[in-house]
């Protein structure tokens, strides 16, 4: 029992088995190839297609977190899950906040203002 290798079974890496890694791998390959084939065939409208592809990516994200990282397993409390959720919050604010602000700036700047700016500055 004093063997450190046995102790390592109680943390992160110990919870995975061959079965979990294999199912994670097969599911990920399937999700990737499905997204690729959907885009190549392009049978539905672009709006639906992008929603599908992003949905498949998010599914694969969750699949890898569960099967490769074993997130949410192991002894409670799940501090790693809390840090993860906080990261998701920061990322959402960062990405959607940037897109919102930049599209707003783009919307409020008239072509004439851009032209004046370019003339004054000699380009962007």
């Amino acid at each position, binding site marked *: 029992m004093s063997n450190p290798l046995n102790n390592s079974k109680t943390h992160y890496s110990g919870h995975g088995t061959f079965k979990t890694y294999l199912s994670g791998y097969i599911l990920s390959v399937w999700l990737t190839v499905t997204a690729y084939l959907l885009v190549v065939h392009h049978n539905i409208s672009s709006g639906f297609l992008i929603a599908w592809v992003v949905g498949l990516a998010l599914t694969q994200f969750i699949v890898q977190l569960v099967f*490769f990282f074993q997130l949410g397993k*192991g002894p409670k409390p799940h501090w790693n899950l809390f840090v993860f959720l906080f990261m998701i919050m920061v990322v959402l604010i960062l990405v959607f906040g*940037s897109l919102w602000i930049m599209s707003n700036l783009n919307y409020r700047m008239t072509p004439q203002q851009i032209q004046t700016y370019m003339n004054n500055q000699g380009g962007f």
Partner: protein
Amino acid sequence: MSEPTETTLIKTPDASSKNVFGFWVYLMTDCVLFASLFATYAVLQSNTNGGPSGAVLFSLRYALTETLILLTSSFTCGLGVLALNRGHKDKVLKWFSVTFILGLSFLVMEINEFNHLVQQGDSWRRSGFLSSFFTLVSTHGLHITIGLLWMIVLMIQVLKKGLKPGTVRRLTYLAMFWHFLDVVWIFIFTIVYLRGAIYP
């Protein structure tokens, strides 16, 4: 006699899981770095300055091959961790070597793609879109490079000293790092390559 052994038994896994947690926190901050680069890309992707868009430049089949190679390397890395937990030194070396070869092929494919773009005159200087593309994808490539160098160092350690507790811990971190890079690549594949093909 029994009391000190009991405390060491309780303390050791706790301490190592704290270390793993610390590494996990690092990975989460790295996610924020990638998120800011993704946000930059999302803002700049239509600013092609009269140059080519993603639909013209990227080969979807090439990107799919890269994706499948990286995904397979993430899987073989997981098999390496399983061997690590069972203490099979030879299998650890075998699976991490396979991971290394796959990671290296991924990196070579990526450098080849960059080289091709630069040769065509579509480098990061061409447009805002290409600047953000190169920044995002090469930051991922830089992580892969560091991961590969780290893998060499750890494999030499395993080869010379065997599976010491410190080496086992570092290999566990490396495996987490490698899975993390695969997760980031899912979003690069989707947002850069697939989205680029949907909206030409």
